[in-house]
């Protein structure tokens, strides 16, 4: 028999513990004389400062049409640079400007470095995820294949990848394989993450397939389906449903592991955070923000997987 709990009371206890932890963080920051400067953070997420439009070369400015068009005539007689869209004008007719000088400003907002990092993390995770799923599916199938060559190859791959740290694999992919095949850092990072996650997904898929009763394969084959048809129409849809929970965990791991690609100078969320810390001297705020953004990504992902799980549960 389950013990009856006073729910309201224990919810209060939970909230009280959270408040205690929060206060603890605040007090400990006080004790080391930390000054919170949260106001410095938003500009690194979304930058609303006017954006400068700079001169591409040395030259003379010509204004026309009631200051609606700026034309920059280069000193060396090449094609002029024409600027039609701007909000703030910084130059006068006849001004002599040098390369890099601000000609005008644009009022529109821009996304800041942390948001760029978030986008990069999302991009690298999604691309790796697609490839990891493909690698994992075929390795998982090879793992249970009757062909010893396929089986041993997949076991070797899985053991090799699971037995070495991801950080080392990223270095190997970037400095060795990347150099041999002339991969750019993004490709090398994606490849390392996909190969790493693929090994784990392979094991998840293998266990998913093996958890399906052998009678399902027999029934499918007895109806005349070949192995591939039986896999695609009968076994994998069932295995997919069963492996969703561990798969979601693996996807979340992938998003978190993607922070390691910052070591090969890919500006993902983590590296963006480090850079912003250097310019703001507000490490606590920045790292809390970065952690929160990771949490948003992983939270959204597990929410989507839960939705999918509910939808697939119709046949249970």
């Amino acid at each position, binding site marked *: 028999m389950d013990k009856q709990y006073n729910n309201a009371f224990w919810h209060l206890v939970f909230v009280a513990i959270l408040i205690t932890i929060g206060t603890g963080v605040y007090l400990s920051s006080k004790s080391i004389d930390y000054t919170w400067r949260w106001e410095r953070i938003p500009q690194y997420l979304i930058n609303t400062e006017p954006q400068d439009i700079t001169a591409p070369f040395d030259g003379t400015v010509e204004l026309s049409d009631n200051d609606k068009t700026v034309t920059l005539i280069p000193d060396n007689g090449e094609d002029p640079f024409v600027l039609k869209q701007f909000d703030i004008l910084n130059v006068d007719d006849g001004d002599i400007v040098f390369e890099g000088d601000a000609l005008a400003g644009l009022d529109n907002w821009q996304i800041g470095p942390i948001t760029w990092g978030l986008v990069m993390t999302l991009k690298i995770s999604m691309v790796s995820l697609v490839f990891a799923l493909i690698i994992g599916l075929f390795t998982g199938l090879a793992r249970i294949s009757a062909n010893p060559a396929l089986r041993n190859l997949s076991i070797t791959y899985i053991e090799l990848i699971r037995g070495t740290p991801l950080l080392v694999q990223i270095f190997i992919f970037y400095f060795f394989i990347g150099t041999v095949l002339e991969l750019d850092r993004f490709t090398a990072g994606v490849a390392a993450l996909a190969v790493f996650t693929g090994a784990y997904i392979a094991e998840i898929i293998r266990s998913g397939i093996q958890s399906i009763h052998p*009678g399902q394969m*027999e029934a499918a084959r*007895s*109806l005349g*389906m070949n192995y591939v048809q039986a896999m695609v129409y009968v076994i994998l849809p069932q295995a997919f449903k069963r492996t969703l929970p561990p798969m979601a965990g693996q996807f979340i791991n992938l998003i978190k592991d993607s922070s390691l690609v910052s070591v090969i100078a890919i500006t993902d969320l983590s590296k963006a955070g480090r850079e912003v810390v250097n310019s703001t001297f507000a490490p606590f705020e920045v790292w809390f923000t970065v952690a929160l953004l990771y949490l948003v990504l992983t939270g959204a992902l597990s929410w989507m997987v839960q939705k999918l799980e509910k939808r697939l549960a119709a*046949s249970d």
Partner: protein
Amino acid sequence: MTEHIDPSIIVAKDVDKIYPNGCHALKEVSLTVNRGEVVVVVGPSGSGKSTFLRTLNQLETTSGGSIRIDGVCLQDPKTDINQIRAEVGMVFQSFNLFPHKTALENVMLAPMKVLKKSRDEAEQKGKELMLKVGLSERMHSFPSQLSGGQQQRVAIARALAMMPMIMLFDEPTSALDPEMVGEVLDVMQSLAKEGMTMVVVTHEMGFAREVADRVVFMEDGELVVEDTPENFFNNPTNTRLKKFLGQVL
């Protein structure tokens, strides 16, 4: 079309099955089944009757001997086993319905994917078969929402959807609650009346006595007795069969 049609549709000759662990499951089993005939295989558990049935569509490979289905030798490496299986329906003890598909989708899947029938055609045939097994009202239910007897009837419809020339039944009522055995046997009996060639492994002696054209007794991997139901049940001469019948009847 009557000229020179071979009356026999299954010809199993000296079929041997030795498992890698040394277990000798089938010992030179020979059996011929004619078109439209219902053959019931009985015997104690572990006698090899299910193994023998499963060699007929090669869910179980053989170690020796040969099996011909409609003249095609299954042991010939050139034989396309998927094509044979499409023409030999099988019903399992544990139903093995596809749990992620509704009853109707279970019936439609193989005709669409193997016979490349259109969805409409498969659906029409599927609905016909669901009516035939008396499950028109439940065809959009998932297997988990059906009783054992209903699931087994869907499984029969699923096998029939491939328009097989032979139906194999592997203890189709053994996993059912007693009150559901009847509904499944009724479907099988009407199928037999329509002239379907059937090989049935079962413990239902009543079904064997009533529906079978021939009854086969297997023990220890050997085919011991093969006879008409009358002789088999009323005047058994073989001592092993007598002992078996004494236990089950």
